[in-house]
């Protein structure tokens, strides 16, 4: 079974968990993900493999509490077992053949960016990490990024930590100051990745964006994760999750990511009402 062996709150809405999954730990590579189900009635949700330990047979996930499933997940404790945990899924990040790269992460996307940064750093690629958060109390993994990159720029929307501004401001500054990147890798909210890609396009820097559309099976069977890349339909779970940022139709992806918003909201409201009834 997939036992939770460590649980650590990284900020009020983001939690790290280490899960026993020896087969996945044996195979996992940066850029890949798992799909899990907390219990029989639960949804299948994809989460990136944030780290892995091949000897101990464990996989680390870092998730943000956004809705029903992540909330249930967060109610589980060390020693509990997840119903299902399947992976590694998706294509690994291509890290070979690059001398210098910039990795741009936003919010919980930094959890996804971290194993990529670490892999680059370990193999001797120069890596500049630019990570952005809304404010100080939401910062995650700052130390891990610092010790695994040759340059770390921390940005915040409100200036409560690092520099005030957006990650695109920081990236632009670095590029303008003469830094030359073989590639920019961006992972975070869709809107952020859209603007990062627009910026790098101006400078002609190859850019890879890690997409996180709604998924079910993760094996290429349902087509729910599809997006348009260079005018062609691609399935993120098997063809991705990383794609050429200059070719992705971000507006379509943004619309698709809201597909079940109303439904999820209703479910959540119902759950709240039920809860209030039970309490009163």
């Amino acid at each position, binding site marked *: 079974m997939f036992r939770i062996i460590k649980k650590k709150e990284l900020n009020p809405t983001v939690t790290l968990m280490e899960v026993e999954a020896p087969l996945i730990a044996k195979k996992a590579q940066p850029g890949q993900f798992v799909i899990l189900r907390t219990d029989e*009635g639960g949804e299948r949700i994809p989460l990136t493999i944030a780290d892995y330990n091949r000897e101990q047979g464990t996989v680390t996930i870092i998730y943000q509490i956004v809705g029903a499933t992540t909330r249930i997940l967060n109610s589980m404790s060390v020693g509990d077992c997840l119903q299902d945990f399947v992976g*590694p899924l998706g294509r690994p990040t291509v890290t070979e053949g690059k001398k210098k790269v910039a990795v741009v992460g936003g919010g919980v996307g930094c959890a996804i960016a971290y194993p990529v940064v670490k892999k680059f750093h370990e193999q001797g690629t120069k890596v500049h990490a630019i990570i952005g958060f809304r404010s100080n109390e939401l910062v995650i993994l700052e130390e891990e990024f610092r010790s695994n990159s040759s340059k770390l720029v921390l940005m915040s929307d409100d200036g409560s930590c690092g520099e005030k501004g957006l990650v695109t401001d920081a990236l632009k500054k670095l590029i303008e100051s003469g830094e030359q990147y073989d590639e920019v890798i961006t992972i975070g909210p869709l809107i952020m990745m859209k603007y990062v890609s627009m910026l790098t396009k101006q400078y002609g820097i190859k850019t890879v964006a890690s997409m996180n559309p709604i998924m079910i099976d993760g094996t*290429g*069977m349902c*087509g*729910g994760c599809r*997006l348009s890349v260079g005018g062609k339909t691609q399935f993120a779970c098997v063809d991705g999750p990383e794609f050429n940022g200059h070719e992705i139709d971000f507006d379509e992806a943004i*619309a698709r990511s*809201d*597909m079940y918003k109303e439904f999820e909201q209703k479910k959540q409201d119902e759950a709240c009402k039920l809860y209030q009834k039970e309490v009163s």
Partner: protein
Amino acid sequence: MDVLKKVPIKEQDPQVRAHNFDEVCLGYELEEAMEEASRCIQCKNPKCVSGCPVSIDIPGFIKEVENNNIEAAFKIISDYSALPAVCGRVCPQETQCEQVCIRGIKGDPVSIGKLERFVADWARNHNIKPEPPKEKNGKKVAVIGSGPAGLTCAGELAKLGYDVTIFEALHEPGGVLLYGIPEFRLPKEEVVKAEINNVISLGVKIETNVIIGRSTTIDELMEDEGFEAVFIGSGAGLPKFMGIPGENANGVFSANEYLTRNNLMKAYDTSYDTPIITGKRVAVVGGGNVAMDAARTALRLGADVTVVYRRSEAELPARVEEVHHAKEEGIKFKLLTNPTEILVNEDGWVSGMRCVEMELGEPDESGRRRPVVKKDSEFVMELDTVIMSLGTSPNPLISSTTEGLEINKWKCIIADEETGLTTREGVFAGGDAVTGAATVILAMGAGKAAAKGIHEYLTSK
């Protein structure tokens, strides 16, 4: 009793069943089954058997039904098929065993499928299970995929004494039987799970949540895990889209997604968290069994549903029974019609579908008359949901991660029809992964042939 007519079978009333997911067909009672069985004239040279892809001894089991020896009838069927309760429900009998039944020359053919179903249901309700093998030979065989092909191959090998493990990508076994075909046609707990449990009781192990090509590979199974042969029954799960504008809008789904949400993830059951867009006005594009299943599912979730198909009624690939049931339930059919564009509103949601009318021209390679566009026939259907049901192709995950495993131009695995042997030594394949989307019973036939092929290969090795 009129011997020219089938003993009628009870069905849920169309008005009622349009609002629930319970099974449509209610099956025979014992007396009815015995009466129907008595219509079989026990041909010396039974045509029906040659019409069945797994050659079930049809007169043999029907005779036992007629004499009220249902357990004996079940034993006979079990020698040929591991999933009789499934096949009795979803086999296209009218084009297989029943099409060639002698009784059919004058009057209705014998209701072979419904009798098979009766026997299997009776055995389940009386807790009768197939017998496990007496001796094990200790040889390990891996089976990829737990659809009808994989289950059959695994069951046959287990009967021969092999140590068989099935690896399944999803969290539950069954393949299309589980995630594709809906509850109202094939009950999951009662029928599918029970028949899978029969396969397990033969000694087959099933490991879910393992994706071959990602979690592990065929090479690793053979080199590191000690599997002496591998059977690939991974199906044809990759959905096709039309490639028309607007197809990625919100509210456009593949039939696989729509059905998976509802069947595997049980969206219709409010105790599950799965979201589904029910839609008010739904178009289902396509005319096969999958299209009928998607349409009837949407209807049960409360939508007004139209099936849009580019040829005429005569060419509908779905089973006649399914089309008939769909019509009874109130599904509309817009035939000789082809979509050209999905219209999208400013929020990114479907608002309609532009279509053209078609007419049938000369026959094409498939022998069916080719639909051609009628001039100036464009029109718009107002809709909020579109379900694309245009067929599927095999997933390249396994072929692309297995050296020496060749595929053809339709991405189907190349395998010998008699033995299932692929271009890779020790690796066999069958079912939709080899033929492209076909039928349950053909997949089972292929699984059975491959089990024989594997047995011959491993005994001569």
